């Protein structure tokens, strides 16, 4: 598997209508890949993510998504996602179907998907109104009789993650908060991994996850490709950006202008970062 351009990988591997999971739990969020989906005008996507944040707000606000499968949709530490809210509350720019889970349910669904099992099992969804609104069913343990919850496995058409680095053969290494990224890759039919850099050797790191090249379809170099999220050991979370996004995203016009200037009119991750050198106009 050779290193490819992100734009080629997205063109070849993501189709309109696909179910796509861009995962990252606060850390290593694949923003550069999400921007490429917007640039290429992907449509009718069913987006899957435990914690849809700014990049999903952007995809939803740009009309790329028909459906969102999620468990917590907010701007962490800041508040609401205004584009997500506008889509759900006012169907702008288009209606958005929701399939809502709990974190434990989403995590179990990914783990089941990675194992190519049809469903995940958990001690969850007990009481409350969520079970009636989502795809979950009670299941009885055949050994103890305990009632548990079954959630259908996540099997996305495309899984996209960001990692710190890959070697020249395309083996990928990530560390720090590793979230649900390994499960996302193994659960998905096709996979794209963006990385900060390609190195000769993947020197072992404490707590690192290594994903072998042969379960990955494309490895693309995207330096600072998680921004405004972070890559542990490379750069910090841009907390100011998350705060600024609250203002930028509140207004439809301001949002569209920002997307025009920083995503649609930039060709790739390096031009995106170049465009941010001018102060963020909130």
């Amino acid at each position, binding site marked *: 598997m050779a290193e490819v351009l992100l734009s080629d990988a997205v063109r070849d591997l993501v189709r309109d209508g696909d179910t796509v999971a861009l995962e990252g739990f*606060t850390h290593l969020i694949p923003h550069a890949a999400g921007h490429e989906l917007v640039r290429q005008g992907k449509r009718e996507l069913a987006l899957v993510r435990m914690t849809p944040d700014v990049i999903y707000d952007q995809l939803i606000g740009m009309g790329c998504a028909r459906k969102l499968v999620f*468990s917590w949709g907010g701007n962490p530490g800041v508040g609401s996602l205004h584009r997500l809210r506008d889509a759900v509350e006012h169907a702008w720019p288009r209606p958005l179907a929701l399939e809502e889970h709990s974190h434990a349910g989403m995590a179990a669904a990914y783990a089941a998907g990675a194992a190519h099992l049809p469903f995940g099992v*958990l001690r969850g969804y007990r009481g409350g109104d969520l079970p009636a609104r989502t795809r979950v069913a009670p299941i009885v343990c055949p050994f103890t009789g305990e009632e548990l919850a079954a959630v259908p496995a996540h099997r996305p058409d495309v899984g996209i993650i960001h990692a710190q680095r890959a070697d020249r053969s395309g083996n990928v290494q990530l560390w720090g908060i590793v979230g649900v990224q390994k499960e996302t890759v193994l659960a998905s039919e096709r996979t794209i991994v963006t990385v900060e850099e390609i190195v000769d050797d993947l020197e072992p790191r404490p707590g690192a996850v290594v994903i072998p090249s042969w379960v990955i379809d494309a490895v693309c170099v995207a330096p600072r490709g998680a921004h405004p999220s972070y890559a542990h050991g490379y750069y910090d979370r841009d907390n100011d950006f998350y705060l600024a996004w609250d203002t930028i995203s509140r207004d439809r016009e301001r949002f569209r202008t920002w997307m025009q200037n920083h995503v649609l009119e930039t060709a790739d991750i390096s031009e995106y970062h170049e465009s941010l050198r001018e102060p963020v106009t909130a």
Partner: protein
Amino acid sequence: MSAHTPDEMMAVEAARRLADGTVCFVGIGLPSLAANLARRTHAPGCVLVYESGTIGPKPPELTLSIGDGELAETADAVVSVPEMFAYWLQGGRIDVGFLGAAQIDRHGNLNSTVIGTYEQPVVRLPGGGGAPEIATSVREVIVMLRHSTRAFVSALDFITSVGDNVRVVVTDLGILEPVDEELTLVALHPGASVEQARAETGWELRVADDLRTTEPPSATELSTLRTLRTKGAAA
């Protein structure tokens, strides 16, 4: 030292409920403030667990998100998110969970999903995240919520998590605890009145016969709390 704010009173009261050695599932904002305060005062052995997968982090400052790098760097262990929810939370290894919400009812049920109907919400809130399983997997839930009739409602628009394990609700006016399966005002913070608490509660609030007054923050609690706030995390 200047007088304390209502948020500081809330953080201090929540912190006092964490015994040394308690393992607690912490969200960002006031819960994080409370748990970090407990760890730096009376409960140095208190273990913080963040749903991002960090177990036992000792961050030098508060962080804006539950997944900042400082948490991973200072943690005893960093685990994947599926492991966090399956092995650690559902495995019954967490003593205390902190929850917040947009709405609470008299039974401690919480709503963080929608205001209005699910199909046509007036306000689409972020959703439950970890809350549904935190609420049913930990031994004790501590709710931190500012008192107002918008939040303390007679009927929730949506039940995101159930109140069975809610042991205490810490508000900016006082402390509510379940008595005969209904949240009851058991303590008032200094300066707050029963009338105020009743006015800010959307149901007829029961008041305990032996209503206590909360001990105001000590000089140590307050000064420790304020060193924690230096990063200016959203609380």
